[in-house]
């Protein structure tokens, strides 16, 4: 039977199938972090269970870690991190703690180690696990009791999902990035448009993307409500993986590639839904509101809620403008920014930092603007330093930080003050996400850097 990529990966992981029951799927890789794992380990302890496959489990510390040198000062953050360390020790789970050369945001660490591979099932107690779908893996976020279930059994009982093809046709214009693509996709289908679906990103524009850019796209699938996002593996994927620490080697490599090459949606496979995006029409895209679907091309103006037909969306837009302190009709390029954040599992990889640095090189962050550059992992940080990117950032007046989630969710000290406005390369612009009362505009690294220079939302072409 013809199948989609997602269905093929699903089928190859079915441990048990019975009428009227969810399929039991095997999980190839389970990533954990300090926020969503403590109760899962506690549950194991209460029931006297062990971790079935510590060797398929990896823990990192990311959400709470400070990005300036020194210990964690917040007591809650410290408890979570210390609990994770104790749990990993007790249950034999490998961990990359703060200060370790492999520490970083969980969704940056897995791929860069070569742990995320095509055709795998990858889960993590974190919604942005969808990032790993860029490799043609079926990767999704899970709740704490599911974390416990995977720890104990290395499997998950799952109900089937539907599939949606996102066809991004044509070639992206110069200066338009993966972030612009995914923001445009979310604006088109809405924050609930992907509900119950696994999205498969397809088409010329997607094939032309690097692995890191594909991760940016898949990362934000969840912001359209989707279970997961995927891109079929191809030569770009294989080239990225080859030689990585955990990638297959020798004869294994050839066997693996032969398997991976099968991981495409069949010609006559049927998707439950399809969406077409014309890549040639895309421009740098930014959000103006308080959910990731409230976005527009940078050249547009803040929308007038009165022109929105849907009643709920209109009300949401009105609330958003009030919270964001914006008024209808204002050109987006006139929005003044206080803080620029470059980082997160959406855009904290080396290519993102290179992109931001290429804009900042020889320029200065505008007076009164704070610009934070937070690498996604310790490795990314080292590599950036080896390439001299850190010097570009600091010479431009930006702050070069230690790796972690940082201002993506403001669980550590990196926060917006009430009313403060950011251009952020992260993935969520919810009210208060970057600090109580903070106002977030989601942007690409290029737009973030150009905005830092101008002090207003801007693309590199505006400089």
């Amino acid at each position, binding site marked *: 039977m013809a199948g989609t990529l997602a269905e093929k990966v699903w089928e190859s992981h079915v*441990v048990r199938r019975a009428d009227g029951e969810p399929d*039991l799927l*095997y999980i190839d890789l389970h990533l954990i972090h300090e926020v969503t794992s403590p109760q899962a380990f*506690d549950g194991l302890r209460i029931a006297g269970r062990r971790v079935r496959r510590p060797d398929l489990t990896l823990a990192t510390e990311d959400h709470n870690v400070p990005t300036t040198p020194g210990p964690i000062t917040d007591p809650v953050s410290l408890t979570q991190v210390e*609990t994770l360390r104790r749990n990993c020790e007790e249950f034999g789970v490998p961990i990359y703690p703060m200060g370790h050369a492999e520490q970083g945001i969980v969704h940056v660490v897995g791929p860069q180690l070569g742990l995320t*591979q095509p055709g795998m099932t990858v889960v993590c107690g974190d919604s942005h696990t969808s990032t790993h779908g860029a490799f043609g893996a079926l990767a999704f976020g899970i709740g704490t*009791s599911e974390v416990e279930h995977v720890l104990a*059994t290395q499997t998950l009982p799952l109900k089937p999902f539907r599939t949606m093809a996102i066809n991004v046709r044509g070639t992206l214009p110069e200066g338009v990035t993966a972030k612009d693509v995914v923001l445009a996709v979310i604006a088109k289908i809405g924050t609930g448009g992907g509900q119950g679906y696994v999205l498969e990103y397809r088409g010329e524009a997607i094939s032309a993307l690097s692995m890191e850019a594909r991760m940016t796209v898949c990362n934000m699938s969840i912001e359209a409500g989707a279970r997961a996002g995927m891109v079929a593996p191809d030569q770009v994927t294989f080239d990225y993986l080859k030689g990585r620490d955990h990638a297959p080697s020798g004869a294994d490599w050839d*066997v693996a590639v032969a398997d991976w090459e099968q991981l495409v949606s069949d010609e006559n496979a049927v998707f439950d839904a399809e969406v077409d995006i014309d890549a040639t029409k895309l421009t740098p895209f930014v959000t103006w509101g308080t959910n990731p679907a409230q976005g527009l091309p940078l050249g547009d103006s803040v929308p007038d809620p009165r022109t929105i037909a849907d009643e709920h969306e209109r009300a949401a837009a009105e609330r958003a403008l009030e919270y964001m302190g914006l008024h209808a009709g204002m050109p987006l390029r006139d929005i003044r920014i206080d803080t620029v954040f470059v980082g997160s599992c959406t855009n904290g990889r080396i290519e993102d930092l290179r992109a931001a640095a290429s804009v900042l090189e020889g320029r200065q962050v505008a007076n009164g603007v704070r610009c934070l550059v937070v690498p996604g992992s310790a490795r990314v940080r080292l590599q950036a330093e080896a390439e001299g990117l850190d010097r570009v950032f600091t010479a431009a007046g930006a702050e070069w930080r230690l790796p972690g989630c940082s201002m993506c969710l403001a669980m550590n000290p990196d926060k917006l003050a009430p009313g403060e406005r950011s251009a952020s390369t992260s993935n969520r612009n919810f009210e208060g996400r970057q600090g109580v009362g903070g106002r977030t505009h989601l942007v690409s690294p290029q737009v973030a850097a150009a905005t830092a220079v101008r002090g207003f939302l801007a693309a590199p072409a505006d400089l």
Partner: protein
Amino acid sequence: MDSFTTHTGIAVPLRRSNVDTDQIIPAVYLKRVTRDGFEDGLFAAWRQDPDFVLNQPQYAGGSVLVAGPDFGTGSSREHAVWALMNYGFRAVISSRFADIFRGNSGKQGLLTAVVSEADVESIWAFCDEIPGAALTVDLESRLITAGDLSIPFEVDDYTRWRLLEGLDDVGLTLRHEQLVAEFEARRPAYKPVVQ
């Protein structure tokens, strides 16, 4: 998890609809790293009010919550179920539950019994008549009995079976451990391991 066949306990009338998970357990209580002790956060805001039902002595030790429609809406936090169970509740009766809450409850051994709105009203009336009186929730016969009342309730077969057997998700899966092991033996050798 403990099996649930029949339970007799004090019925606590919660005369509110749309009780969301933020009201069941406010976000400030989510910072803990354990799975017990959440009872102190249960309905924390409402418990400030001395007249709130849980503050009334006749309902001390209550274990069956009888609530208005749309119980458990809002965020998917499992802490809402932990808080109810840590407090001592074994069952919640309502005419409508939020899906995720219902799913989370079934997984952890909290029975969510669905009855009509009129039936909720009659149970509330029963509670008013004899505050602190016990009622019985019989899962085997899917029947709530309180005084003269005898009210059938809905629960899906799968959840009922699991509750009767006392099987949590992990326990269920572990019954198929052999299949998991067989699957592991078939996995391609090139699949990565962390260490």
